[in-house]
């Protein structure tokens, strides 16, 4: 489980955290990503860094589905605290090969309590 707590820009943790996920995907593990606190901003749609000369890496999240990283848990309370809703996030999907390659949403909104239970079930938790 990769826990993401920071906004996409302002610090490098989001970008370098994503790099770990992408490289880790090659190791055939059962992985998921969690977005809490300011981490929920990483998935916000319509990011535009053209004024700041910093690379906009938000399109990279679209590739996660192809890497079999298809469980992206977003904490509801974190969204609400920031005046965001599910509709403000990018529509990330994955293709389920066990279901006729049907496209399904990768993002799931979960409560803080549900997240706590999810974390209990993990073997390894990294946080950025």
């Amino acid at each position, binding site marked *: 489980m990769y826990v993401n707590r920071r906004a996409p820009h302002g610090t*490098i*943790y989001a970008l*370098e955290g994503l*790099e*770990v996920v992408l*490289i880790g995907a090659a*190791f055939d593990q059962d992985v998921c990503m969690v977005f809490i606190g300011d981490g929920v901003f990483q998935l916000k749609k319509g990011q535009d860094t053209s004024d700041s000369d910093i690379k906009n890496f938000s399109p990279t999240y679209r590739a996660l589905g192809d890497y079999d990283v298809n469980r992206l848990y977003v904490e509801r309370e974190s969204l609400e605290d920031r005046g965001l809703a599910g509709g403000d996030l990018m529509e990330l999907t994955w293709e389920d090969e066990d279901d006729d390659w049907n496209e399904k949403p990768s993002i799931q909104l979960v409560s803080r309590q549900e997240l706590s239970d999810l974390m209990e079930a993990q073997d*390894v938790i*990294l946080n950025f």
Partner: protein
Amino acid sequence: MKFSIMVNEGPYTHQASDTAFNFTRAALEAGHEIFRIFFYHDGVNNGTRMTTPPQDDRHVVNRWSELAEQHGLDMVVCVAAAQRRGILDADEAKRNGKDGDNIAPGFRISGLGQLIEAGIEADRLLVFGD
């Protein structure tokens, strides 16, 4: 128990490296095994031999090197994070056309796969950061 340690901040600015060091040393003294110490983000800055901290305080880089030598620890600096921050060994310097290297003794530069393996092989992976 077998532990893997992840250090995500550089020396001095954050206490993360100190806490990681103290934990590692205590775990070893208690008879546990440290599978690997992986330095990521600014943590790679723990791996430069060029620091000259004030003499009346701890030498963060050197004590990592000493602990590693004493216990045969595997200390890995992430290559991607190191390239961004200018931590290199002789091979990296040659490969990237740099006029010097700065890696400290006991540290080796390698890929993120070493971190994933560290998480899989250990009983617990501890992350020290900000």
